[in-house]
């Protein structure tokens, strides 16, 4: 094979890779990873739980509490239409039902249950890296803020 033929072969193999790559990039979100955290906010002390470092900007921008402590955090992989339950110590039970992935957003139903009654039942659409907070729930040591996020899992 001369130099031109080598170049031609390489070019043809590269051409082959383009459609293969196009197939690979056609990913669909097969499931969703849901993360639910329970944060206890109060004006007692100045503690900022280091596990909440990635959310510091959110808390500083949105609230004026002086102390934030992560009570519990759970992550679960859920298929579309399935559901995942998260229990919060001393707080409510959170049920998350991912519905679909559309327009780069995860649509999911969130039900917050307390004493066997739904106190919040909502359908939200969260974009990539987006967070939904449900706050205002009374707790003996302050106020509970539930942090809910979801990222699509691609095959």
């Amino acid at each position, binding site marked *: 094979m001369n130099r031109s033929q080598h170049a031609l072969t390489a070019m043809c193999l590269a051409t082959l890779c383009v459609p293969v790559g196009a197939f690979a990039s056609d990913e669909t979100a097969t499931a969703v990873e849901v993360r639910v955290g329970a944060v206890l906010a109060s004006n007692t002390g100045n503690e900022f739980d280091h596990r909440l470092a990635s959310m510091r900007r959110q808390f500083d921008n*949105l609230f*004026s509490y002086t102390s934030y402590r992560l009570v519990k955090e759970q992550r679960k992989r859920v298929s579309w239409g399935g559901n995942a339950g998260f229990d919060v110590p001393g707080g409510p039970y959170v049920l998350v039902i991912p519905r679909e992935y559309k*327009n780069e*957003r995860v649509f999911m139903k969130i039900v917050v249950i307390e004493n066997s009654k739904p106190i919040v039942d909502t359908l939200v659409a*969260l974009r990539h890296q987006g967070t939904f907070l449900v706050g205002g729930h009374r707790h003996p040591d302050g106020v509970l803020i539930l942090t809910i996020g979801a990222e699509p899992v691609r095959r």
Partner: protein
Amino acid sequence: MRCHDVDSLLPLFFDGELDARRMRDVALHTARCADCESEIREFEAIQEHLKATVEAEITEVDFAAMWSGIERRLQPPRPTLWQRLQAHWERFESWEFPLPLPAAAAVAVAAVLSFFLFAGAKSPIVPDAALVASTDYANSVERLDTAFDSVALFSDPDTQTTVLWVGDMPLGVDP
């Protein structure tokens, strides 16, 4: 925050042009102040009326015909498959060196794959007007039912965070 503070901020609040903290303060005030809340409702009614009027106008526009017209002007006429094959063959014929077997096989496979990949993409893409108008790719709350009398919903676009504050406990105050 008092009523007269909120009054001047309501138009900005309704258009989502306040920063997250002031947005939150206005939302919390209006959740508890009947007068300010009724002003919000008036803004909402005006907005709804405006939206309905615009949507009615949009439905009368024939977007499908408009897009196909634009596409005709944008794209040069596509040669037929036979014309493309003929052009390729003429180019191959003019080469001085013989086509190596692996390269010929790769070209054939690539052609078959490309045909199957792009065959379905011939029809013009006509965006749905309603979808274009409503898609902003931000967090949103599509529906909400709650047992609480008072809720506040606010968001911080900087951190892509949406907050639903429920119950009677003022924000920033311990129980």
